[in-house]
C-alpha cells in the first residue's frame, strides 16, 4: 500500500460518506414529510430497461469496468513498495557506493543480538509508508531494565550510523521476552 492509495481511500471515503449521509438524511426528512415530495420515491420505468436491446450491452460493459476497478483498487492495498538499496555519499564518477538495505537490516539485527540485554533480533526493510527505513525487532531479556535496553540499542545505532554515514533511518521495536515459568517466584 502506498501513500497515493491511502489518499484515494480517504478521498473516496469522504465523498461516499457525505453522499450516504445526505441520501439517508433526505430519505428520513421525506419520510417525516418535512420535505414535500411524491408519495412514492421511485424510478418508474426501470423495469422496462431489461427489455431494451442496449441493456445487456450496457450491463455487461459496465460490469466489466466496475469489476476491473474494484479488483485493481483492492490489489493496490496489497502492493508493497519498498526501497531496496540506497546510494551513499562519496559515490562519484569513479564508482558508485550502493548499500543494500536488507544486508544492513540483518547486520544491525546481528549486532543487536550480540548485546547483553537482547536475547534475539531480526531485521527487515520497511515498505509502503516506511519505505527507505530499516526496522530491527529486538526481543529483550525479561529482567533487562529499560536503561540497559536503551544503552544497547544506542550502541547498535551508533554502529549503523558509522557504517552508513548517518544516511539510513533505523527503527527499533522492542519486545520483552516472557520470563521462564520457574523464575516467577525468584
Amino acid at each position, binding site marked *: 500500500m502506498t501513500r497515493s492509495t*491511502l489518499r484515494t481511500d480517504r478521498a473516496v471515503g469522504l465523498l461516499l*460518506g457525505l453522499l*450516504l449521509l*445526505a441520501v439517508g438524511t433526505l430519505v428520513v426528512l421525506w419520510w417525516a414529510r418535512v420535505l414535500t415530495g411524491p408519495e412514492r420515491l*421511485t424510478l418508474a420505468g426501470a*423495469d422496462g430497461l431489461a427489455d431494451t436491446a442496449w441493456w445487456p450491452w450496457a450491463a455487461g460493459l459496465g460490469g466489466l469496468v466496475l*469489476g476491473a476497478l*474494484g479488483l485493481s483498487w483492492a490489489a493496490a492495498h496489497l502492493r508493497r513498495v519498498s526501497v531496496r538499496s540506497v546510494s551513499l555519499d562519496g559515490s562519484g564518477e569513479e564508482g558508485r557506493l550502493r548499500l543494500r538495505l536488507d544486508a544492513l537490516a540483518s547486520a544491525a539485527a546481528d549486532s543487536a543480538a550480540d548485546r547483553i540485554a537482547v536475547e534475539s533480533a531480526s531485521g527487515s526493510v520497511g515498505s509502503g509508508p516506511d519505505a527507505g527505513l530499516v526496522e530491527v525487532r529486538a526481543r529483550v531479556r525479561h529482567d533487562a531494565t529499560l536503561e540497559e535496553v536503551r544503552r544497547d540499542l544506542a550502541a547498535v545505532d551508533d554502529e549503523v550510523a558509522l557504517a552508513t554515514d548517518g544516511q539510513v533511518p533505523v527503527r*527499533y521495536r522492542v519486545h520483552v521476552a516472557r520470563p521462564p515459568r520457574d523464575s516467577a517466584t525468584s
Partner: protein
Amino acid sequence: MTTVADTRPTAPDPARPTPEVSEPAGTAPVVLPSLLAALVLVGLGVLGVQTALVAAGAVSGPAWLDPVLSALDTGLDRSAGTLVLGVVLGLLGLWLLARSVGRRPRPDYSLGAGTHAWTGPSDVARVASLVAADVDGVVTVRARARGRSLLLRVGAVDGADVGDRVRSEVEAATEGLEPRPRVRVRVSGGAR
C-alpha cells in the same frame, strides 16, 4: 604505520547520527471500508456481466439484475422499513466519514526522544508486572497498559501495605517512556 587512513576523504569520526524516524503506526482505519467498497464494486460487476451473459444465451436462468430493476421500479413508500433504511444509510455515511479522517493507530510507547525505539503496551505491562512481583509481600500481579494508563491489580499477603512501594518501583522501571504511563495500583488481600 600505514597511510590508508590519510587518503580518506572525510574523517569517520564523529559519525553523523542516524536520521529521525516516524513512530510505528498500524493500518489506517479507512482501509477497511475501502476494501469493502472494492468488494461491492466487484459484486456489481459480476451482476452486470451475468446479465449480459444471460441475454447472450451463454448462461441460462434469470438475470440477477432483474430483481434490482423491479425494486427500483417499485421504489420506496412511507413504511417503517424506509425510515430504517434512511437511518442506516445515514449512519453508514457517518461511519465512513469517521473512518476516512481517522489517523493510523499509534499504540506504542517511545523509549525516549532520540532512541528511535518503541515498545508495545503488552511489553510495558510485562515489565511492570515483573517489577511489581519482586516487591516483598506481593503474591500475584496483573498489569494492563493502554495509552497513558498503566493499571496494576496486585494481590498481597494480609497486612502488607504494598501499594506505594509497587507504584514507586514501577514508576522507576518505566521512567523515560513516552507517553509517560500514569501508574495506578489496586491492592487486594493486603492492608486496606
